C-alpha cells in the first residue's frame, strides 16, 4: 500500500536505501543520512505509512519461499466455487480445475479448531497422510492439498455426487438385486485389500463412508481415523470404528488388532445391503455386544482361544447365559439374496475370532466373486439422484460425525488420550 505516495517524494536519499540492491551496504559503505524534510512530511500525513509499508510489494513477492510458491501454484490450479455446505469442522466448496472447468472437485476446507490445543488436528493429519499415498479406483482421490493465508488446510477431493451406500439401501425408490450387491461388494473388497496391502487400517468403514462416483463406482472415503499397521506388541486404541460396525474384539477392549477389524465392518456393510436395514443396531457398547452375541453366539475360549483375557470380556460375560449362534438356516433365510457362496463369504468375514476371520486377500479370492451371477458393470448400477449438494453434505457429515465421536475435547476423546489407554 501507499507505494505511489512515497514515489512523490523525490529525495534521492530516500530512494537510495529503499531500492533493493543485490548486495547493498557493502563493507564500510556509509549510508547517506536521509534528510529530515521528507520524513516530517511523511509523518505529518495522516496515513499510517511506516517504512515497512513503503517497500514496493513486489520485493516481497520476488522473495516468496519456494514452498510457498509451490503452494500458491497448487492453489491457483483450482477455482473455488460456491459454498456447498458447512459443518462444525469443515466447509465444503464446489470447485473445478482452472484449466478444465469440466473437471469438478469438492474442496474441503478444514476449519481451525479452537478447542484442540495441539495445532493441526489429528484427523486432518491422518486423512492427508493416507490419502496422499493411496491411489486406487475405489478409494476417494485426493487431487491436492493447499493452505490458504488464514492457515486453513484445504483438501481437493474427488467430486462424488451420488450419495453413499447407506443412503442407497435406505432409499426405497432404488431397487437392486444380487448382481448389484456383488458389484458393490467386490469394489469395497478391492478398496479394503488395497488399504491393507499398503499397511493401512481404515478403522471407520461403514455405509455412509462409502461414496458413489459419477460412473457408479464406489469410493472408500474418510480416512480421519486411519493408521498404519502397528508393530507387534505396540498397543492401539480400541475406541475406533462406528459402533454398529465395530468388531467384537474391539468391543471386548482388544488393544492389539489387525486388518481383521476392517473386514468385520465390511461384512456388516454387505449384510446391510442385503437386508436393507442395520444388522446389529444398538445404543451403547454393551448393547452392541449383546446384539452381536444374539446372532453370532457368545464366544468362549473353546472357539476363540484367550477371548476371556480381553479386558472387557468379563464385563458382559455371564456363564449362565451363553448364547448359541444362529443356525445356517437363519443365514439362508435372511441373506438368501447372496446365494450360498455369498453367505459363505459373509460368514467368513463375520467370524467372531479375528484370527479365523478371512483376510482381505482371501476375501478377494473367494469363489463368490467368480461364480454366477456376474457382478453388474459399475455404469449400470442403480443409484439415486444425488448432485453437487449431496457431495458437500457427505463430506460435512462424515467429518462432524467422526469428530464428535472420537476427537476434539469431548469425553470420549479425553478418555482416549489419558484414561482407558493406560494399561
Amino acid at each position, binding site marked *: *500500500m501507499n507505494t505511489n505516495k512515497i514515489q512523490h517524494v523525490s529525495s534521492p536519499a530516500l530512494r*537510495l*536505501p*529503499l531500492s*533493493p*540492491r543485490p*548486495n*547493498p*551496504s557493502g*563493507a*564500510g*559503505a*556509509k*549510508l547517506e*543520512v*536521509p534528510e*529530515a*524534510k521528507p520524513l516530517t512530511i511523511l509523518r505529518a500525513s495522516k496515513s*499510517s505509512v*511506516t*517504512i*515497512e509499508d513503503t*517497500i514496493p510489494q513486489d*520485493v516481497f513477492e520476488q*522473495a516468496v*519461499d*519456494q*514452498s510457498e510458491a509451490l*503452494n500458491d501454484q497448487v492453489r491457483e490450479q483450482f477455482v473455488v466455487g460456491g459454498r456447498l455446505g458447512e459443518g462444525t469442522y469443515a466447509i465444503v466448496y464446489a470447485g473445478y480445475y482452472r484449466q478444465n472447468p469440466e473437471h469438478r472437485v469438492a474442496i474441503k476446507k478444514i476449519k481451525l479448531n479452537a478447542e484442540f*490445543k*495441539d*495445532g*493441526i488436528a*489429528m484427523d486432518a*493429519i*491422518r486423512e*492427508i*497422510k*493416507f490419502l*496422499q*499415498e493411496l*491411489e486406487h479406483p475405489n478409494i476417494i482421490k485426493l487431487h491436492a*492439498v*493447499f*493452505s*490458504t*493465508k*488464514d*492457515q486453513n*488446510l484445504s483438501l481437493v477431493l474427488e467430486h462424488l455426487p451420488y450419495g453413499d451406500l447407506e443412503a442407497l439401501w435406505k432409499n426405497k425408490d432404488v431397487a437392486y438385486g444380487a448382481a448389484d450387491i456383488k458389484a458393490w461388494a467386490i469394489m469395497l473388497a478391492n478398496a479394503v*485389500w488395497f488399504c491393507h*496391502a*499398503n499397511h493401512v487400517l481404515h478403522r471407520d468403514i461403514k455405509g455412509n463412508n462409502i461414496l458413489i462416483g459419477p460412473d457408479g463406482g464406489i469410493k472408500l472415503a474418510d480416512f480421519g481415523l486411519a*493408521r498404519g499397521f502397528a508393530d507387534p506388541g*505396540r*498397543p*492401539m486404541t480400541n475406541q475406533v470404528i462406528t459402533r454398529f460396525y465395530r468388531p467384537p474384539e474391539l468391543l471386548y477392549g482388544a*488393544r492389539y488388532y489387525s486388518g481383521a477389524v476392517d473386514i468385520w465392518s465390511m461384512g456388516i456393510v454387505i449384510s446391510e445391503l442385503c437386508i436393507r436395514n442395520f444388522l446389529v443396531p444398538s445404543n451403547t457398547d454393551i448393547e452392541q455386544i449383546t446384539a452381536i452375541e444374539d446372532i453370532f453366539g457368545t464366544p468362549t475360549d473353546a472357539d476363540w482361544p484367550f477371548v476371556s483375557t480381553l479386558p472387557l470380556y468379563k464385563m458382559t460375560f455371564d456363564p449362565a447365559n451363553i448364547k448359541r449362534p444362529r443356525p445356517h438356516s437363519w443365514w439362508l433365510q435372511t441373506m438368501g439374496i447372496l446365494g450360498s457362496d455369498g453367505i459363505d463369504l459373509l460368514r467368513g468375514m463375520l467370524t467372531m475370532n479375528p484370527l479365523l476371520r478371512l483376510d482381505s486377500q482371501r476375501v478377494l479370492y473367494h469363489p463368490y466373486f467368480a461364480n454366477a451371477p456376474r457382478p453388474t458393470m459399475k455404469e449400470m448400477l442403480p443409484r439415486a439422484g444425488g448432485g453437487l449438494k449431496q457431495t458437500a453434505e457427505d463430506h460435512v457429515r462424515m467429518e462432524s460425525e467422526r469428530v464428535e465421536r472420537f476427537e476434539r475435547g469431548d469425553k470420549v476423546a479425553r478418555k482416549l*488420550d489419558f484414561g482407558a*489407554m493406560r494399561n
Partner: protein
Amino acid sequence: MRLTEDDLYRTSTQYKHWSFTPAQLADQRKTTNISASERVKQNVARKRAAKAFDTPTASDNGSGVDTNGANTPLRTVDREVNCLTVAEEKKLVDTFCERALELGTFLNFPTEVTATGIQFLRRFYLFNSPMTYEPQTISRTAMFFANKVEGAHLTLEKYVASFPKATAEQVLAPEYLIVQGLRFQFQVRHPFHGLKGGHLEMMEMSRGNAEPLPASEKTKEEIQEELFQLPRKPNGPAQDMTVKQLQGRMGNAYALASKILKGPAQLTDAYFLYTPSQIWLAAHLLADEPLTLFYLSTKQALDSPLLQKLLAVIRECAALLSSHHSYTSDQTSPAEKAARDKAEKEEVQKLIKKLKQCRDPDKIDLVKLNQAQKRDAVKSEDGGSGLEESKAKRRKLGREKYEKEADEFFGPELGKKNVAVDVETKGV
C-alpha cells in the same frame, strides 16, 4: 493379486517427490541457497535503510545540535552480509538433525517418531534455508509434528514442558510453514521394518525352516548348513557354528545394523538417495558382510546381473552411511572417533556463529509472523484495507524487540535430563 514391495514403494510420495539423484539433490540445495541469500541481503538492506531513516528522530532529543538531524552520523558501520554456502547450510542441517536425534532420545520417542521428525527436517531444508528459518525452532516443531503424524500422542503441554524455555505458541507457530514445506506429504517410509523382516527370515534360515524361493537350487537344509560354515569376515576361513552361535551372530548383526539405521541413516542423505530396502541391506552389509551376501544369494544368484547391479547400489549406500562421523564399527578406534567428533564440534560452532550474522531479519520471530499472517487474512476477508496504525506500530516494535533477542536464540541448549517425560506408547 499381490503388490510387491517395489510396487508399493513406487506409488509412495517418498519415491515420487522425495527421491533424487545426487545431482538433482545438489541442484535443489543450490537453488534454495541462492534464493535465500538474495532475500537475506535484500531484507538486511531494507532494515538498515529503515534504521538509517529512523536515526534522526532518535537523536532529536539527545544532541539538540541539529534539529532536522541531517548531520547525525550513523552509529554502526554496515558490513556486507556474509551468507552461508550450500555446504555450510547442509552441515548445519545435519547438525540439527543430530540434535533432533538427541531430543528424541531425551523424550523417549519411539524410533520412528524421531526418524520421521528428522526426515521432516531434512525435507523442509531442501526448500528452505537455515538462514531464513532458524533450525532449532523448526526442529522443535518438526519433532512435535512427527509425534502427531506417527500417532505417538504426546500432548503439546507435556512436550513444551520438557524444554527449559519454550511456549506452546512457539512450538505451534511454524507448524503450517513446515506442513507446507513438506508439500502436505507426511508419510516417511523407514527401513526399520525391512531390517526386522530380513532378520526374522535369517533366523528362520538358521533353524532350517526357511522355504527357499521356487527358483532356488538349494534346499532349506542346505541353506542352514551353509550358514553354519559362513566365514566371519569376507574371504575369512570357514566356520563351524552351532545354531546358537549362528543366531548370536545374526543377533549382533541386527543390533549393529539397527544402530546404523537409527544414526547414520537418519543423519545423511540416505533417504533421499536410496530406497528403504537398499538402506537396510547396506546397514546390514556394514554389520556383517558375509551374512548379508549369503542372504542375497538365496534370492538371486550372486553373479546375476541384477544382483550385481543391486550390490553396487548397496555398497554405495554403505559408503555413505559409514562416512558419517557418528558411524562406528569394530575397526574404528576410540581415538579416531574422538578426533572426528572434536573436529566436528569446532566446525559446527563456527557455523552457528556465522549463521547469527546472516539470518533473514524478517523471519526471526515466527510467533509474531504467524499471528500477523492470521490477522492479515482475517482483515482481507473482511475486505479491510490493511492494518491500523497502532497495530502496525505494535508489530514493528515487537519485531525489533525480537531482533534484539535473536542473539539469544542459540542460547539454551536442550534441557538437562531432569525432566522425565514418558512417551510410553499410548497407541492410537
